[in-house]
């Protein structure tokens, strides 16, 4: 009668960072058309809220999927210290080549956190403003749809 249950744990972290959405291989007009005010030359910033979800077996000795004593320092080191109060375009090397859209930030955070040893990374959810949030669970595939 006892059902197998799946348990995950979600923890929220915060960082504030600036960025600029701009591609050097696009013309100024194109950058303005695609990125709008996000392309303004001096950049702008957000208070990001990051939710990290890990899953796995609940250790009977601790009652935990992951010990926050392990997860917190890992996320702090991999993401918060690297991104907080930084200009992402210049100070996070991955964004020297890639536009630091929230989608790309999400993907980069997932890549960094995937290596967390004690539990399975289920997904990351990045809230850029109270109106916009982005999630990535590692799923690869699907066709990118270009707007007509």
């Amino acid at each position: 009668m006892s059902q197998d249950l799946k348990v995950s744990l979600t923890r929220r972290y915060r960082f504030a960072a600036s960025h600029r959405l701009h591609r050097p291989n696009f013309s100024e007009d194109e950058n303005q058309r695609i990125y709008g005010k996000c392309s303004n030359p001096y950049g702008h910033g957000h208070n990001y809220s990051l939710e990290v979800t890990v899953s796995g077996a609940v250790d009977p000795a601790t009652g935990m999927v992951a010990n926050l004593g392990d997860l917190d320092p890992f996320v702090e080191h991999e993401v918060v210290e690297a991104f907080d109060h930084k200009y992402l375009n210049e100070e996070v090397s991955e964004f020297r080549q890639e536009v630091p859209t929230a989608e790309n930030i999400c993907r980069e955070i997932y890549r960094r956190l995937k290596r967390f040893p004690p539990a399975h990374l289920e997904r990351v959810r990045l809230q850029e403003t109270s109106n916009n949030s982005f999630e990535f669970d590692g799923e690869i595939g699907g066709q990118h749809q270009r707007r007509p």
Partner: protein
Amino acid sequence: MEGQGIRGENVMIRVTRKIEFSAAHFYHNPNFSAQENRRVFGKCNNPHGHGHNYVLEVTVAGVPDPETGMVLDLKELKDILQREVGERMDHRHLNYEVPELAGQIPTCENIAQVIWRLLEPKIAKGKLDRVRLWESPDLYADCTAESGGEGA
């Protein structure tokens, strides 16, 4: 197939109801040494305990009844949550006063599983889909049925 057509009677809808309760707990494993307990559980090991305002979100999935347009009566769900969880856990010490948690460390993960097992047999209409237990605005555990596991 569930979810066919948005005008059919077989659309699957998820309904979520929230309740809050406040409770005390601490983490301690009697098989660990005192040092090990402190190392693993940190300040949560303080034997005097501490407490949280827990927020519980319970999601039930089902096909709305064609007569009422409802998956289930939310008032009934509220009463179930109050009876099964509120009365058991609100203003209680989870280490000492909740028999279902006896012998377990009362972490978010374990409490969410206990709540799932308390609620699952009581949901008469629809099917328990997810138990989300917030320990603070920055931390929650989700409990769902393992896909591929035996159904209810």
